[in-house]
């Protein structure tokens, strides 16, 4: 096994990875920006190195600073977490060239799947249904207009290098196209350093369903699906497994097709294949070649530690798991606790956490990086922690989640805790009668 791993991330996911490393007996190196010097991941790691200033491009996206940190500490492998450089093929390539193991698939595969245009092609070739849209990249506004005229409004402009809803714009009519196209390009350039855009038909009432896979050189196993249809501004807020709306026939078709595709492309590590689901049909959306925010949902249901398995696969090449090992149990829900004000259109709410009491109890898990007195800066993502609860069935999972949310106290900043309580008590959520656009239409405040 590796002796030392550098965690190229921050916040709750860095803490999550450090925990997995510790359990494998691997020593850890945390990297951080100047403003993150007192953060939880720095405190938990065996060593830490400051790699630059608050702006992500100077620190967490700063490849040369990261490689210097590897050199100085002698780390054998890098875990990129999610976001930042986790799906940056160039980074994976540099890491590999330096004789350091990148914990994730090969740079070639990251490049292929990271380019959403290319990924769509691969999915199609491997038997997955895809969404109607532009045939590859859309460069100019006039090209964009042609595509939109052909498939009809509304359309979705997406970043070929993107994810997490950034650089994504819904265009309902031609008059909006110009502004939204430029804005998408700007955000794509800023967050993914790649301003390549493509256009797809916009689904009005879809669910978002995704399949978690773990794949080694020897085989690919799936860890069932997650339903992530409670979203705000295209970002997931609540995830659950199993999906309450698909039947066994659709589920087994979805899982089988996903495993077949992932196996065929020779994927290594943890990955997620995302789908849009509407009117009984699913369509390939994209593949995330990294660990996801909502991975604990699957971990609680299956009892498999995805991050530890990721490290195992990176080290051994093979996965030790077989499909028979995956026996999901009960129902699991995750609520993302963000530092934002849901009553003010999810306006960011940075500040100092003055009081922090995190819930615990039976089948209750908190993945976070917060503590009393910690400062939530405005420079990074608003996700501060995740609350995950399991029940024997969906009803019990909801009840347990409400109990845990009631215990959760965060003072000093505004969070999504209160909104989660409202959502979980809402009849539409209870009856699973919602889609990804539900939150923006429902008024909770």
């Amino acid at each position, binding site marked *: 096994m590796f002796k030392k791993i550098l965690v190229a991330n921050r916040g709750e996911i860095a803490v999550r990875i450090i925990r997995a490393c510790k359990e494998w007996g691997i020593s850890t190196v945390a990297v951080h920006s100047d403003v993150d010097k007192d953060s939880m991941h720095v405190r938990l790691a065996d060593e830490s190195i400051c790699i630059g200033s*608050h*702006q992500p491009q100077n620190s967490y996206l700063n490849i040369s600073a990261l490689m210097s940190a590897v050199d100085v500490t002698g780390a054998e492998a890098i875990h990129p977490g999610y976001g930042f450089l986790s799906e940056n093929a160039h980074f994976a390539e540099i890491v590999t060239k330096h004789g350091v193991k990148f914990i994730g698939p090969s740079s070639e595969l990251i490049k292929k799947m990271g380019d959403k245009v290319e990924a769509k092609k691969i999915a199609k070739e491997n038997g997955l249904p895809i969404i109607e849209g532009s045939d590859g990249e859309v460069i100019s506004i006039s090209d964009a207009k042609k595509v939109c005229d052909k498939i009809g409004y509304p359309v979705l402009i997406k970043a070929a290098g993107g994810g997490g809803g*950034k650089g994504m714009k819904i265009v309902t009519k031609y008059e909006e196209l110009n502004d939204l196209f*430029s804005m998408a390009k*700007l*955000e794509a*350039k*800023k*967050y993914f350093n790649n301003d390549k855009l493509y256009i797809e038909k916009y689904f009005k009432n879809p669910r978002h369903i995704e399949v978690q896979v773990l794949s080694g050189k020897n085989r690919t196993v799936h860890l069932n699906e997650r339903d992530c249809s409670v979203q705000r501004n295209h970002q997931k807020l609540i995830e659950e497994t199993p999906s309450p709306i698909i039947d066994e026939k659709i589920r087994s078709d979805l899982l089988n097709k996903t495993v077949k595709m992932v196996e065929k492309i020779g994927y290594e590590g943890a990955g997620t294949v995302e789908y849009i689901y509407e009117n009984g049909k699913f369509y390939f959306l994209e593949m995330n070649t990294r660990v996801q925010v909502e991975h604990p949902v699957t971990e609680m249901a299956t009892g498999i530690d995805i991050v530890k398995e990721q490290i195992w696969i990176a080290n051994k090449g093979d996965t030790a798991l077989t499909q028979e090992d995956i026996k999901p149990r009960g129902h699991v829900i995750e609520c993302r606790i963000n*530092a*934002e004000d849901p009553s003010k259109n999810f*306006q*960011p709410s*940075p500040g100092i956490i003055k009081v922090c009491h995190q819930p615990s109890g039976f089948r209750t898990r908190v993945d976070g990086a917060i503590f009393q007195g910690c400062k939530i800066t*405005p*420079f*990074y*993502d*608003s996700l501060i922690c995740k609350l995950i609860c399991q029940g024997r069935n969906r009803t019990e999972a909801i009840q347990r989640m409400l109990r845990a949310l009631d215990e959760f106290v965060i003072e000093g900043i505004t969070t999504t805790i209160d909104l989660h309580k409202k959502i979980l008590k809402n009849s539409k959520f209870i009856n699973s009668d919602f889609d990804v656009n539900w939150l923006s239409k429902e008024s909770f405040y």
Partner: protein
Amino acid sequence: MKINKKIIEELVGYLKEFNLSEIDYTEGSSRVKVSRSINNSNIIDSENKIIKSKIADVDESGSKITSPIVGTAYLAAEPGGKKFIDINQKIKKGQTIMIVEAMKTMNHVPSTQDGVVSKILVKDGEPVEFGQTLILLK
């Protein structure tokens, strides 16, 4: 071993003088380490004073447009792109004067009134506080 009190006294003096929390000093085969706990609130206080005095230094005559949010200020829509506003430019109420990015959200800051830009008080990529004056209008 004989303890050299003088060295310790001198090092403790330096701790205070330079506001350090620890000094590890080696001379030949002897090594002395002195440390103390620093009250962090003092540091924060002095930082706040610096920020406040910085703000107070600025001649804020004219109308102020302040930041509605804490975050990172950007004067142009893209790196190296055209700035939203320039000095002496006539601007209208509602016109974007800059972007303040907070938690990966780009917030366009609109001017709250008509006027001519007399001063731009923040640099591109600089962190800004809630309520901090971004520009002055005459």
